[in-house]
């Protein structure tokens, strides 16, 4: 059952086209990673889902209702990013009380345990927390609210390494305890990869890929071997990146068009290896022919 | 109107300025002033206001009655006839309960020169002369009558300063004391601006005939009225 449907959704701020004709459908109860460079339109898309922005053209349905200024979608959704702010009069404990008052599925004891684990003093004020503590508190706030749609916009930035891995597990455990739809944007894709089910890749305002994680990763493979062997092969398939060093070529190609079986490749001495999701993302969004080495040659 | 406009705009600037200061202050004292404490502060302020009200309305002693416009009309109805009586030289309106003060003077001869010193025109007196049979010759009786003097609904007859009456070189002098200043605080829990613009609800009484000086002289004596201000009464 689709929780979010966008049809030809585009959004422009003045002349800047933030989103160009995005069409995607997000299923319920999945953890989905929304990946894209800064300024690719991730936040704009999330803001439209959250009902804060109106699409310029096209439509967007959340819980098959128009989310803009809609109290029903707001009641089943929470948007956590670094802009989350509370009144200066509220200590963290008051904030939790307020959350409990608003969100029907609120889990207060869980919040206390999580914050205690992260070593955050509940009497502190939200504005006094360090960047890492702030990110932690906001994430806990998002998790314990247990909304059917939980949007986490770069929940981990500011947290140090140890806490990050703990809280990835916390997200997974919370997902298992109360299945819901997570939309998580992050720069640490490789850390987060294991808990994701699907990836939505956005570049320059349009959705480039939206697929389950493994399918997404198997899109591209990297071939490395003697240049002459590879030359004819590369001409048939779509090459995403290529580097020729002393007679050896290593290239990233689209796996779908490759008809040659692995045995033949191996006999030709061509090594085949899969790529990590973040590498796939990088190559997919990499502007064709942009290559850092070119700067040094 | 100018005053109100200046007042209007200065109060805007003042309120905005105070707001800026408060918000700066607020930031520092955020920890102390929690919503609960502020609430207590506000409720105690209101209770304080309530007690002030109770104190004022029950315990404040200086109570000066205020006449409503209907009372004033009644008072005025009573004193409309004064000018009529005056023209008919009839002094019946000068009843004793308005008598404020009487002076008894002696003088020689059968003419009494009267000098009214009104150069700083503070006197709005109506001076009358009357023959009185049971005064021996060489004596005169000067009485000062003060009728209600209503301003803004307040009867100030007690406040009107008495004139200064004395005899010197066988002449009767009537002078007024220096101008007297009276301050009143009028308390009205309404929007004064509205009342003002709705026209004085209170009917302002015409106070020109509010006080009289009557000089009683025995028959056969004459008043030398060089200034021509004294009229004759029965």
């Amino acid at each position, binding site marked *: 059952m689709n929780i979010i449907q966008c049809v030809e959704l585009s959004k422009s701020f003045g002349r800047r086209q933030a989103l160009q004709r995005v069409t995607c459908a997000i299923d319920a109860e999945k953890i989905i990673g929304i990946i894209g460079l800064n300024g690719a339109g991730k936040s704009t898309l999330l803001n439209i889902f959250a009902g804060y922005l109106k699409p310029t053209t096209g439509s967007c349905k959340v819980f098959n209702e128009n989310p803009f200024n809609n109290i029903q979608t707001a009641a089943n959704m929470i948007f956590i990013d670094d802009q989350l702010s509370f009144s200066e009069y509220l200590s963290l404990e008051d904030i939790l009380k307020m959350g409990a008052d608003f969100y029907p599925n609120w889990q207060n004891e869980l919040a206390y345990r999580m914050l205690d684990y992260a070593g955050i003093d509940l009497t502190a004020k939200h504005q006094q927390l360090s960047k890492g503590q702030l990110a932690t508190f906001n994430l806990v706030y998002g998790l314990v609210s247990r909304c059917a749609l939980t949007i986490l916009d770069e929940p981990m930035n500011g947290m140090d390494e140890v806490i990050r891995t703990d809280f990835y597990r916390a997200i997974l455990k919370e997902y298992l305890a109360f299945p819901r739809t997570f939309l998580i944007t992050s720069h640490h894709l490789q850390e987060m990869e294991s808990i994701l*089910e699907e990836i939505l890749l956005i570049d320059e305002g349009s959705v480039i890929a939206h697929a389950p994680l493994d399918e997404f*990763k198997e899109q591209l493979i990297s071939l490395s071997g003697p240049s002459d062997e590879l030359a004819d092969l590369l001409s048939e398939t779509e090459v995403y990146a290529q580097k020729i060093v002393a007679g050896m070529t290593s290239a990233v190609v689209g796996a779908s068009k490759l008809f040659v079986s692995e045995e033949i490749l191996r*006999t030709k001495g061509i090594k085949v290896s899969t790529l990590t999701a973040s590498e796939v993302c990088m190559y997919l969004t990499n502007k064709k022919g942009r290559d850092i080495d070119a700067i040094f040659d | 109107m100018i005053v109100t406009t200046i007042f209007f705009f200065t109060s805007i600037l003042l309120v905005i300025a105070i707001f800026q200061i408060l918000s700066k202050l607020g930031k520092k004292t955020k920890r102390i002033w929690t919503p609960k404490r502020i609430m207590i502060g506000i409720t105690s302020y209101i209770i304080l206001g309530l007690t002030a009200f109770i104190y004022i309305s029950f315990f404040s002693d200086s109570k000066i009655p205020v006449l409503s416009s209907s009372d004033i009309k009644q008072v005025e109805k009573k004193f409309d006839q004064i000018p009529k009586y005056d023209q008919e030289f009839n002094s019946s309106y000068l009843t004793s309960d308005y008598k404020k003060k009487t002076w008894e003077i002696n003088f020689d001869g059968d003419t009494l020169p009267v000098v009214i010193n009104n150069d700083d025109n503070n006197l709005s007196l109506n001076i009358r002369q009357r023959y009185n049979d049971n005064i021996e010759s060489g004596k005169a009786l000067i009485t000062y009558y003060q009728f209600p003097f209503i301003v803004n609904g307040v009867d100030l007859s007690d406040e009107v300063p008495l004139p200064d009456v004395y005899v010197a070189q066988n002449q009767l002098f009537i002078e007024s004391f220096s101008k007297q200043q009276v301050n009143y605080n009028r308390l009205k829990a309404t929007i004064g601006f509205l009342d003002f613009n709705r026209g004085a609800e209170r009917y302002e009484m015409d106070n020109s005939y509010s006080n009289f000086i009557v000089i009683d002289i025995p028959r056969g004596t004459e008043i030398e009225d060089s200034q021509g201000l004294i009229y004759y009464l029965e």
Partner: protein
Amino acid sequence: MHVHLDGTTPIYIQIAEWLQHEIIADRLQADQKVYSQYQLAELFNINPATAGKGLTILLEEQLLYKKRGLGMFVTMDAKERILLKRRNEILTKMAQEIVLEAKRLLVSDEELLVLIRKTQEGLE
């Protein structure tokens, strides 16, 4: 339990192989209930869907069978099938690599056979 995320083999395949390993090591007997996808997700700190994919691979290879509403169970001959598969698939692939490597290192066939026999004796 650790799943290596360096992208060499997809996680769901690693899960499938781990489960097969469990069956061979008799920690999962025949007709015994197998971990659910949620338990696997918790165990390996991965998304339940990925764990589910691993289970479906074993299901397609008839190593597990599904009882409605109860979950997945190990089939009777699961262990033998895994051993057989491993023998002819994985062993043959390894053999191929050895032969290729030998050719590159210009090792003749006889020397190769002698080497294999010597390693077998060494193991006894």
